[in-house]
């Protein structure tokens, strides 16, 4: 890419590195050159936008999490590796048994020596393939053993430097010092031993941030509920929880309340309502203060419950005797409301059921519309959002007060609820009963770095 003749000065100005003389020269050139001013403005915009990203805040408990990992000498395996290793553990077991059955069939007795000493004809191919399979199994086994034993990973070529670093650090403690009290009691309990046997629970307890989440009484109460448990086992909830608009809406109290309303959940199950929500006429109407006020009146709510009354009112006007209500009369003078009522998609939804009318009449819905109609209406019309809100298991999660409160401003919890490993950990009955009433466990969750360190020590 060719450099612009004034780049040095322009970028220097952006980065504050110009001398007074250079700045003066740039000012003169800018005053005389419109194209240069435009270029400078463009670069300034880029700089402002990049700066606007701002610093990112590490997740809560990050320092504890790092120190826990430092104590274990372990680096984080990427998520894909954790999943793959889990599958491999199951897969290699199945493959092993299949190979054994295969060999038994080929060799009659299943004598292990026969296939290692070679076979004639087609058997030789089988033997060759089998040897490759066994070699593969051996590699897979090593990988799995390395993973589960938490062997310290060392960079290629870094062995010497690690040795030097070890000397620099001096002797490491052989056991992890654990704080006195409840945490220590828990770490010495049978419950801890039992929990350690479950790899998903183990991973959970080694994660400071997840421990902090589970230490919250509202999260604990939610996790032990049957409908929440059921929802987490649902494979389809993953995409719903990842919906960015849903996460954004859950940060706003008013919208959160609207999203948790039963009337909205019922309406979102109806395809005609979904189509009506996408109509421009509805989007415009909801953004109109007159329509918002009209929707709060009993007269209009009653009218919306009867599609034939709506049709007649639109055709003949409210004074025709079908909706002789002052509120309705006033409302029907609003062109945006009339356009919404006359929209075929709106009419189709009203004809199908009273779900749309009930949703529009709901206090929480109206509050969200009043707060930010444009955003709320756009959100309701979004395909991904509609798909997410249609998920009944997600609705069950949102309906739980404690969980909804915990989900607010907590993207990690959103991710956890969608994670099969987290769901698997939550199926552990020992963990459930500890969450439900083991005070020592609660203390250990709060002392998450001690918990993580103890897990690391046991792994060794």
């Amino acid at each position: 890419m060719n450099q612009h003749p004034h780049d040095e000065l322009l970028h220097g100005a952006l980065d504050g590195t110009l001398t007074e003389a250079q700045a003066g020269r740039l000012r003169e050139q800018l005053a005389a050159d419109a194209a240069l001013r435009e270029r400078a403005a463009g670069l300034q915009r880029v700089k402002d936008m990049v700066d606007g990203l701002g610093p990112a805040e590490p997740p809560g408990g990050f320092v504890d999490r790092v120190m826990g990992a430092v104590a274990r000498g372990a680096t984080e395996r990427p998520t894909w590796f954790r999943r793959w290793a889990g599958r491999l553990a199951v897969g290699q077991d199945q493959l092993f048994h299949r190979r054994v059955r295969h060999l038994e069939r080929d060799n009659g007795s299943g004598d292990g020596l026969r296939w290692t000493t070679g076979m004639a004809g087609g058997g030789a191919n089988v033997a060759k393939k089998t040897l490759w399979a066994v070699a593969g199994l051996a590699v897979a086994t090593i990988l799995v053993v390395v993973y589960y034993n938490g062997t310290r990973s060392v960079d290629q070529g870094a062995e010497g430097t690690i040795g030097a670093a070890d000397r620099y650090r001096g002797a490491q403690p052989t056991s992890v010092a654990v704080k006195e009290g409840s945490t220590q009691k828990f770490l010495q309990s049978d419950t801890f031993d039992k929990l350690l046997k479950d790899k998903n629970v183990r991973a959970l307890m080694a994660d400071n941030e997840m421990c902090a989440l589970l230490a919250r009484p509202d999260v604990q109460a939610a996790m032990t509920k049957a409908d929440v448990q059921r929802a987490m086992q649902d494979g389809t909830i993953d995409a719903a929880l990842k919906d960015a608009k849903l996460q954004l809406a859950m940060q706003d109290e008013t919208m959160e309340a609207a999203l948790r309303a039963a009337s909205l959940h019922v309406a979102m199950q109806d395809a005609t309502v979904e189509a009506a929500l996408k109509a421009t006429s509805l989007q415009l109407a909801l953004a109109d203060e007159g329509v918002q006020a009209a929707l709060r009146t009993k007269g209009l709510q009653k009218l919306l419950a009867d599609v034939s009354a709506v049709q007649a009112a639109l055709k003949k006007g409210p004074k025709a005797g079908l909706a002789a209500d002052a509120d309705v009369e006033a409302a029907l003078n609003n062109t945006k409301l009339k356009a919404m009522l006359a929209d075929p998609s709106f009419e189709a939804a009203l004809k199908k059921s009273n779900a749309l009318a009930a949703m529009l009449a709901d206090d929480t819905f109206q509050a969200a519309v009043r707060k930010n109609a444009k955003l709320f209406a756009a959100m309701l019309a979004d395909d991904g959002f509609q798909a997410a809100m249609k998920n009944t298991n997600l609705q069950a999660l949102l309906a739980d007060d404690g969980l909804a409160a915990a989900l607010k401003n907590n993207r990690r919890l959103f991710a956890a609820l969608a994670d099969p490993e987290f769901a698997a950990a939550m199926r552990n009955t020992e963990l459930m009963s500890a969450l439900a009433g083991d005070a020592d466990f609660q203390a250990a969750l709060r002392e998450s770095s001690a918990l993580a360190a103890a897990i690391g020590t046991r792994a060794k």
Partner: protein
Amino acid sequence: MDAFRPLVERYQRVLFSVAVRMLGDEDEATDAAQNAFVRGYQKLGTYDRNHKFFSWLYRILVNECLNVRRARRIQVPLGVSLAAPDDTHRVAEQAEIRAAVQSALLRLPVANREVVVLRHFTGLSYHEIAETLDVPEKTIKSRLYEARQQLGDILQCWRAER
């Protein structure tokens, strides 16, 4: 080990910021930053006190980011902020802009991206960036200018499509 804690506390924010902007995914950035600290601790003996600690740690972080990129999942740079929702519409609009900028950053060649990230999110001077990346200062400037021009082009397209 306790002596290492203040270093983690001091550099966690800058290291995490750099990782997020380089990778565009907060979970991956958390893993990369954590791994960088662990490896940093393991390799403390190799740290040369004549250089900035951050520069040394940053090189470790870059390797961790590359490891994460090799093992990368489908990337969805959300850009959804955890800012207080006093004005949800404004927050949504800002989130959209941030997502576009983050996405534009991820479209830059890695060599250009890291210069932009180091300049904008760590406050290092041209000279310090050159030292950190072990390339001449002239190259740093040329990469930065080019990167800003590329970002401008990408964001202009984004605005036009909006």
